[in-house]
């Protein structure tokens, strides 16, 4: 008779808590063998193939490509005895435990509707909603409940802790009377959740209804007295499922997505690929060709390079992946994950701890543009891209060498300022996965060509989505190239732990007073945000002025270099 085994997301490195699903190699209904590679995941450390621990037929798969799944979450269920007699829905004598009872509910659903989007979407949401108070069962509260409660809820699988590492165990009230009040509510929660040896509470007609509708009882938050799943709960869950199934991106919404395609990709940075960081070979700024202003770059180099916008828009736009569409189809709620979450945390941490001041400078960069042209023709630089960003990076390095105290970090907990005697130059990059800020290690040691190579490597890595945590850690100062989007300038937010960030605006031809006459000149705006706790206005201003001086007259670099 069918016997179901669950495969949980393992910790493929030491101490990882989540992994992103890159690709499934098996589907529901496939036969798998022991140690057959079933999926590829990406952890914070590396890409890893995961082998199946079981032989049998895949009956459930949870988590879609691109989903970030917590370690310990059931991602696959395998029937290891597929040729056995079909089990009765409730068959206490079969495999004995709750596992079978719970699991046997599931395949009935699964065989009808292979994918259970709401189930996989629900689990992470629950975990995100209640990170602290969720009972141990919550993170693993996926359709089929664990067989042996011994490791339920553990972050680490198999070898892991006995009790949920995400959760604090309740203490006896005698020991910690202050939290006694919390305990009843925990108990209620625990009762509500299907725990070990404890099935979901629902009356038989409701169970039948759920089964008929293909609704997974274990995924429903019960509202009835004593934690009972009611008929209304099931119907509500059904409605939710229907809504997300029916809502598609019709021609109408696709059209709007396409028409706003360029704006959207610029705004989110999602569609613009890593070109955003300014290796803009085709960017007019570099070529000094016509139509410089509207860096057409956004649509031309970014979005179109990433793929035909209109065609792709007919599919789910990537930023809506794994979202839940509202009942009326007018909104999509997308769980905040990995890069987006880290970005948000970093931005909040930075914006609300470091008092930001931004100074601006508009500068004539005509000489820099000419230099870029000359260098492009130089044999030394044949195999690297020379861009205005490169000269800007060099200018910033020179400014830092003249004002090393800008290259520092405020360490609040120690009440110290750590001055760095090296420069790890961060370059903010919009990638298909979101904003990342990898840095060029020891950029202060690099020649101009080395810097160009560094930027090229960093770009290629970011574009391939292979930027590692190490690439992004220990940055000391950052450049954000907002100009690539045709933007004049902005007030950048500091990369946490750094004390300055330079925004590099679009370069446009503008009327400019040059040698006493109004001339057409290449002009751009620079903005430097700095952490006012350790950088005074004077220092920030001097650094920006130095950057501007080099861009205005690159030969200044010879003097300062």
């Amino acid at each position: 008779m069918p016997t179901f085994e669950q495969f949980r997301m393992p910790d493929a490195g030491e101490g990882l808590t989540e992994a992103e699903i890159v690709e499934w190699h098996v589907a529901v209904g496939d036969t798998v063998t022991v140690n057959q590679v079933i999926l590829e995941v990406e952890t914070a450390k590396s890409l890893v193939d995961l082998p199946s621990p079981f032989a049998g037929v895949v009956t459930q798969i949870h988590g879609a490509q691109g989903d970030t799944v917590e370690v310990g979450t059931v991602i696959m269920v395998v029937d290891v005895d597929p040729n056995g007699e079909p089990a009765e829905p409730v068959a206490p004598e079969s495999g004995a435990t709750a596992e079978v009872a719970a699991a046997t509910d599931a395949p009935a659903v699964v065989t009808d509707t292979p994918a259970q989007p709401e189930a996989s979407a629900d689990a992470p949401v629950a975990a995100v909603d209640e990170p602290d108070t969720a009972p141990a069962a919550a993170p693993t509260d996926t359709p089929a409940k664990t067989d042996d409660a011994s490791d339920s809820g553990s972050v680490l699988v198999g070898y892991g802790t006995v009790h949920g590492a995400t959760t604090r165990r309740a203490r006896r009230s005698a020991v910690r009377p202050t939290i006694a009040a919390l305990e009843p509510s925990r108990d209620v929660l625990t009762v509500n959740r299907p725990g070990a040896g404890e099935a979901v509470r629902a009356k038989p007609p409701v169970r039948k209804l759920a089964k008929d509708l293909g609704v997974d009882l274990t995924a429903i938050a019960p509202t009835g007295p004593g934690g009972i799943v009611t008929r209304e709960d099931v119907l509500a869950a059904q409605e939710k499922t229907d809504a997300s199934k029916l809502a598609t991106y019709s021609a109408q919404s696709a059209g709007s997505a396409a028409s706003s395609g360029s704006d959207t990709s610029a705004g989110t940075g999602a569609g613009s690929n890593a070109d955003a960081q300014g290796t803009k070979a085709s960017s007019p700024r570099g070529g000094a060709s016509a139509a410089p202003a509207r860096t057409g770059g956004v649509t031309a180099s970014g979005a179109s390079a990433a793929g035909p916008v209109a065609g792709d828009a007919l599919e789910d736009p990537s930023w809506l992946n794994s979202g839940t569409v509202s009942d009326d189809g007018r909104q999509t709620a997308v769980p905040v994950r990995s890069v987006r979450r880290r970005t948000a945390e970093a931005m909040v941490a930075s914006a609300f701890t470091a008092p930001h001041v931004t100074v601006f400078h508009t500068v004539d960069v005509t000489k820099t543009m000419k230099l870029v042209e000359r260098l492009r023709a130089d044999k030394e630089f044949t195999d690297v891209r020379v861009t205005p960003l490169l000269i800007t990076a060099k200018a910033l390095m020179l400014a830092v060498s003249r004002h090393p105290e800008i290259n520092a970090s405020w360490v609040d907990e120690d009440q110290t300022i750590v001055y760095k005697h090296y420069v790890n130059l961060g370059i903010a990059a919009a990638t298909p996965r979101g904003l990342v800020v990898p840095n060029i290690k020891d950029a202060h040691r690099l020649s101009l060509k080395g810097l160009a190579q560094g930027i090229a490597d960093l770009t290629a890595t970011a574009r391939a989505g292979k930027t590692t945590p190490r690439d992004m850690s220990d940055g000391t100062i950052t450049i954000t190239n907002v100009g690539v989007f045709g933007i004049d300038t902005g007030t950048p937010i500091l990369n946490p732990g750094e004390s300055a960030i330079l925004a590099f605006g679009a370069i446009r031809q503008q009327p400019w007073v040059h040698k006493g006459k109004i001339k057409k000149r290449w002009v751009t705006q620079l903005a430097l945000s700095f952490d006012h706790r350790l950088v005074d206005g004077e220092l920030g201003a001097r650094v920006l002025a130095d950057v501007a001086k080099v861009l205005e007259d690159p030969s200044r670099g010879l003097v300062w270099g």
Partner: protein
Amino acid sequence: MTDLLHHPLVEFTAEHAPLQFINERGERVENQQNAQFVRYLEHLNVDDLKNFYRDMMVVRRFDIEATALQRQGELALYAPLLGQEAAQVGSGQALAASDMVFPSYREHGVAHTRGMDMAKILQLFRGVDHGGWDSFEHNFHLYTLVIGSHALHAVGYAMGIQQDARMTAQRDAAAQHDAATQHSDAQAGAHFGDADAGEQGTTQPQADASSPDSASAAFRGDTSQDASHTGQAPQEAVMVYFGDGATSQGDVSEALGFAAVNNAPVVFFCQNNQWAISVPNSLQFKAPLYLRGSGFGVPGVRVDGNDVLAVHAATRWALEHARHGNGPVFIEAVTYRMGAHTTSDDPTKYRSREEEAHWRAKDPIDRIRLALEAEGAWSETDDAALSAELEGFGEYLRGYVRSLGAPEKSSMFEHVYATENVLVSEDKAWFAEYEASFVDAQGEAQ
């Protein structure tokens, strides 16, 4: 910097060519160099060769299963040995049961040759205990995770063997002396001072059969002379396994120094697998590793670590050298870690596909298999039997690991001190009380 980081595909000049008996095409090699070592292979027959092959296949299967178990969440970590099977099996098979082995943490293949159940190693990698075996059951010490420190432990152990031999010699000599001088107890007493003198190990009766020369020789650890006089050559040897990365640790150099001046019966077996995690040989040393011992007065030999016969011959020679009181030997087995350093790292981040392909062509198992086939020594029947054995072994390993369960939490206090310690006992009692303070501590079936 780029140049430094460039990792050359290892090719040897004739001067530094490693000892080899079977090349990567599975052909027998005969040359002037390996002629000196031929006698260390003469005892081998076809069945022994087949056993090498079988052992290496078993070890590789262990590696594959353990890696998969880690990816399935059953192990916290695993250090793969893929590609190093010949270095481990060839050397391990050269050891005598009475020899002591100090492994680092990747010597699963050596454990197998010692007769140890490799499954026990996985207890460590599952985090169930600090190593699930008794070091003296198979004379295979627990794994040492601190890089290189066990080289000192090994030398200390080898010096202990010497000390034991000296004490035995002294006891025997004292017994002879007693027998010979029963008529003049008083005089002997004057010489010995008191009964403790014999145990000091440095005071020698002047009128003894063993000369003062031999006494001082023994003190210097010059057991070759000592042995020639007393016939008490150490019968045991010690072998310590470490990698190229460990040679950059001071401990290994210190160990070489102690071993050399004490003439300790220890063999330093360095598996140079080219990578110290992500650091290549080129960033660790300029001179070939097998020459590392020469400055200490420790002879070295470089051997093709992917040739099980070459490894076996060189190790047998080295152990013989050590056992006969000629002092330590340094073996560099040139091999390649085809997998990751551990399951927590990603070798594609620091080395090239070309390099991996280069070494895959030198696979240690492929070449012995080719040799066996060329010599008509391997049949389909052998294949079927072996693959059935491997399947069973894989199943056994998976079952073993999954049934390990969790250790009692209190067990963490058990191996801190050999004997009871008041502070640890207090901690243990406090922890038990703390554990009992949780509401779920009772009544829940775990």
